[in-house]
């Protein structure tokens, strides 16, 4: 009997491990390394209505224990995702979570409506860290009422459950989560990247062409854990946790904090086999810790102390 299978809104997962959006493209590259059907799910790269080139290079740089990226929503656009990438992924027995992005509520709605109808898309993940062109470029994800409005609009057109991806760059993450839950979200994914910068020694300029970038990797793990701990106690929808996960112990730590499943981002770049390795390592580690199923770990940090 599997120790790892899980049910989440819209998702029947063989295991709680999925690659995080933007860190796995549309799966093709990693399919060279292993059978994608092993994965719990796949969060595909953010999709916008039209194709986008994204930011100029350099798009990545490093920081202690982390990396900064400013890819900038480069993607082939909704049509290509619907006609090429999603159909290609149908060969695998794995649910797809489609990461939806846009510059306006209308764009999100349009992408959500069409992509949620794809046969292998079992859930949407709303990337609300995108700049909102109607509100002076301030991210949708930094204001609870704007995020709630967006959630409601997308929810009203989506054919599959909607998960909203929280940005950690806010004062009160719990307020964001509650507003999004109230707006009808089926789940949360968290955290997206922290905003950071690095500068060149020789010319004092920002290393990234976009100047700022998103900090990911082990460096942000404690921030992700704290936010998941707070949010999971304040909402009744499940959380897919992410931020610096590299090891089976990291996975379990995120579950303790309150996540129901996890996503792995940056670690794929360091080890392309990280996801199947985690899936393989988890049962033994769980047994050693005295669990008979991964779901027993969920929220144990706060369930115990009550």
């Amino acid at each position, binding site marked *: 009997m599997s120790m790892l299978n899980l049910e989440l809104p819209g998702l029947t997962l063989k295991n709680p491990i999925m690659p995080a959006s933007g860190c796995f493209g549309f799966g093709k*590259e990693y399919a*060279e390394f292993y059978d994608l059907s092993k994965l719990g799910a796949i969060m595909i790269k953010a999709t916008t209505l039209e194709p986008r080139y994204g930011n100029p290079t350099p798009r990545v740089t490093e920081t202690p224990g982390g990396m900064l990226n400013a890819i900038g929503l480069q993607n082939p656009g909704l049509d290509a995702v619907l006609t090429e990438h999603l159909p290609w992924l149908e060969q695998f027995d794995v649910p797809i979570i489609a990461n939806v992005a846009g510059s306006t509520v209308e764009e999100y709605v349009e992408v959500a409506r069409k992509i949620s109808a794809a046969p292998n898309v079992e859930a949407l993940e709303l990337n609300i860290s995108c700049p909102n062109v109607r509100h002076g470029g301030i991210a949708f994800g930094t204001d609870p009422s704007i995020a709630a409005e967006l959630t409601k609009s997308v929810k009203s057109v989506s054919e599959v459950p909607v998960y909203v991806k929280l940005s950690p760059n806010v004062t009160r993450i719990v307020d964001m989560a509650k507003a999004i839950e109230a707006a009808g979200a089926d789940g949360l994914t968290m955290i997206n990247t922290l905003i950071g910068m690095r500068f060149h020694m020789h010319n004092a300029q920002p290393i990234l062409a976009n100047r700022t970038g998103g900090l990911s990797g082990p460096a942000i793990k404690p921030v992700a854990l704290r936010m998941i701990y707070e949010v999971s106690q304040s909402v009744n929808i499940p959380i897919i946790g992410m931020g610096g996960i590299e090891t089976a112990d990291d996975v379990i730590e995120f579950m303790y904090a309150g996540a129901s499943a996890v996503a792995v981002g940056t670690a794929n770049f360091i080890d392309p086999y990280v996801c199947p390795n985690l899936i393989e390592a988890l049962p033994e580690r769980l047994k050693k810790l005295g669990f008979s199923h991964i779901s027993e770990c969920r929220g144990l940090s706060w369930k115990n102390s009550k």
Partner: protein
Amino acid sequence: MAIKELMRIVQHNEIAENIFRLTVQGKLTKQVHEPGRFLHVKVSEGTTPLLRRPISIYDVDHEKKELTMIYRVEGQGTKLLSTRRVNEKLDILGPLGKGFPVEKAVPGEEALLIGGGIGVPPLYNLAKQLVKKGVKVTVILGFQTESVSILKEEFEKFGDVYLATVDGTIGTKGFVTDVIQMMGIKPDITYACGPKPMLKALKEQLPNERLYISLEERMGCGVGACLACVCKVPNDLTGYKKVCSDGPVFQAEEVVL
């Protein structure tokens, strides 16, 4: 197919100021054929630096199962790499990318190989394979200054070698493009690897159709998934190529520098 392997270091030494020659052994070697592909090397055992470092393959010895790289200490990552010792294991992902198309050169033709700085090493195995195929090879190597000029003797096995240094301490004073002009070299096919300004100048000076250039870009995944390393393509605002998986070697016409 790319694999990930803990390869054993069999040789590691400084061959010029801050330039190291590193030979590793393992079964990954079996996958290496085309010249100009690269290895993605984990330099730290911890989390800093977090990402792998792309280093081109200098040469391959299938019998001994050995791969050699030549790299320059640039920053934190390559500095750490330079401290790794013989018999230690190095976590290597590769071979990655698309290399130099040896098949585009016809036996009897004249191939020009142009390397700039630390772009020189990947041309070595290319020269070897071209010569073996019966292609005539001429090599131009450009460096900042004599103390960092490398591999002249190694390339002389394969054909004429011209040197250019920016400060004139060895070879022609100036750039590789100056050498092409001075010598009136008219190659059938050209392969180049080096800094972007050099590649740009070559793209203007030489016929593009049979000019193959190897690009560098900061990388995340190294396998084509993260879109860190893209470059633009002509006449397509949202189109792009990925240096790590569509390249690093491109036909000059394919990409906008």
